């Protein structure tokens, strides 16, 4: 049975109504219905006959799909303030690329190198990465949506000062960028080496049966060393990508140097770094070798501490120079 004029229009209006805000549904549909009837009447007057089903359907089709028609009445909605989109992208880029990738590489490096079926571990790493990435994107998006929802304004965005904008990078800055990048690569490599060397390790075995038994202090400093080197590498990487954050990097470097000194203090306090056992050595030989080895490690640790102190002084000088407006060797904010 062919649909009547009223039936087709009613069905159309009902479909439009479904998508409309509840409070305005009746009002909008009544006005839309009136407009359609006026249009139909005008068309009928022009043609000189009542519209058939096809002609009426053509009018409704020209008006647009119910969802499209209703969309015009909906308030403009957005999830994130367009002004915040660059910050949103920057946050995601930092988290997904510069935090997650090194973190996952670090967490899975040990298992990949030691597991019997490394490809399974690589696959698991990839799956876990995507899971974490999706969750992070979701959480960051929710945070930015809430900031927009509650109209949080950033003081820094409103109270900016042209005189505090970062200066245009010079050739020297470019060199410094490469230095930061080299620092980041070295930091990641050092972390990887540390993990490879110390992952669940309590001793090293050598040909001939000799064993180098690690003291408990190495277990105590295992995670602090990783945290310290990765933090340093991360901020080096950020400084190479975003030179204006070099001051932040300097502060972090000073913090890392202080942590390194604390680790050195823990090591020196422990004193007994390693013990040598096994092999064809006499007890006296073993004692001598152990003492020699511990002494070597002790001097190396002290040398490392001196280097860290020198680095900390260097970073403090950098900070002071940039603070007093002198062109520093690094880009400043």
């Amino acid at each position, binding site marked *: 049975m062919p649909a009547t004029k009223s039936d087709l229009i009613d069905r159309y209006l009902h479909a439009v109504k479904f998508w409309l805000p509840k409070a305005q549904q009746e009002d909008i549909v*009544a*006005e839309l219905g*009136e*407009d359609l009837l006026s249009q139909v009447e005008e068309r009928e007057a022009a043609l000189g006959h009542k519209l058939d089903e096809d002609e009426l359907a053509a009018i409704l089709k020209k*008006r*647009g799909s119910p969802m*499209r028609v209703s969309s*015009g009445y909906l308030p403009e909605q957005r999830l994130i303030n367009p002004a915040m989109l660059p910050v949103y992208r920057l946050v995601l880029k930092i988290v997904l690329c510069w935090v997650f990738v090194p973190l996952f590489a670090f967490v899975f490096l040990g298992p990949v190198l030691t597991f019997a079926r490394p490809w399974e571990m690589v696959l698991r790493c990839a799956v876990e990465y995507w899971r974490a990435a999706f969750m992070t994107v979701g959480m960051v998006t929710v945070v930015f949506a809430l900031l927009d929802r509650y109209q949080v304004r950033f003081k820094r965005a409103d109270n900016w000062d042209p005189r505090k904008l970062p200066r245009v990078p010079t050739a020297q800055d470019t060199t410094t960028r490469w230095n930061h990048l080299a620092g980041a690569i070295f930091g990641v490599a050092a972390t990887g080496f540390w993990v490879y060397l110390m992952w669940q390790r309590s001793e090293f075995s050598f040909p001939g049966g000799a064993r180098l038994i690690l003291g408990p202090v190495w277990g105590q400093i295992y995670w602090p060393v990783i945290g310290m080197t990765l933090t340093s590498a991360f901020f080096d990487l950020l400084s190479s990508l975003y030179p204006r954050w070099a001051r932040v990097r300097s502060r972090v470097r000073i913090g890392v140097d202080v942590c390194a000194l604390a680790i050195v203090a823990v090591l020196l306090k422990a004193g007994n770094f390693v013990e040598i056992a096994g092999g064809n050595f006499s007890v006296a030989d073993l004692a001598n070798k152990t003492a020699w080895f511990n002494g070597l490690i002790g001097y190396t640790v002290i040398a490392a501490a001196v280097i860290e102190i020198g680095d900390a002084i260097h970073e403090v000088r950098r900070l002071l120079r940039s603070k007093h407006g002198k062109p520093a060797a690094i880009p400043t904010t």
Partner: protein
Amino acid sequence: MHTNGASSELFDNLRLELRRGCLVVAILAQLHTEHYGYALRKALAGQGLVIDENTLYPLLRRLENQGLLVSQWREEEKRNKRFYRLSPLGEEVLPDLLGEWHQMNSALERILGDREFAAAPQSGSHSKEEK
């Protein structure tokens, strides 16, 4: 003219932006006299400003929400129709808007000067009704 899909889409977007503000001025000016939606659309079209229904009705509601228009349902020709007219605020704002429009129009006239630009014929995708 603009047979390329991308340039046609670009033209449509630019045209949309260009006409968006003008439509508000035209509607406010037309509603010095009370009209219901369909009659308003016919009146505007009669003066050369074709406007799509799906643009007109949401725009009328927006202007009413902004306090520039007032409306009331009334029976006419045995059907209930919603009549719109300028509100006191609309009466106040319209002259300012028109002044702004005249100023912009004069500036454009001066910028264009004697230079002649071939106008695209109103055909194909470019002659679509206002979205």
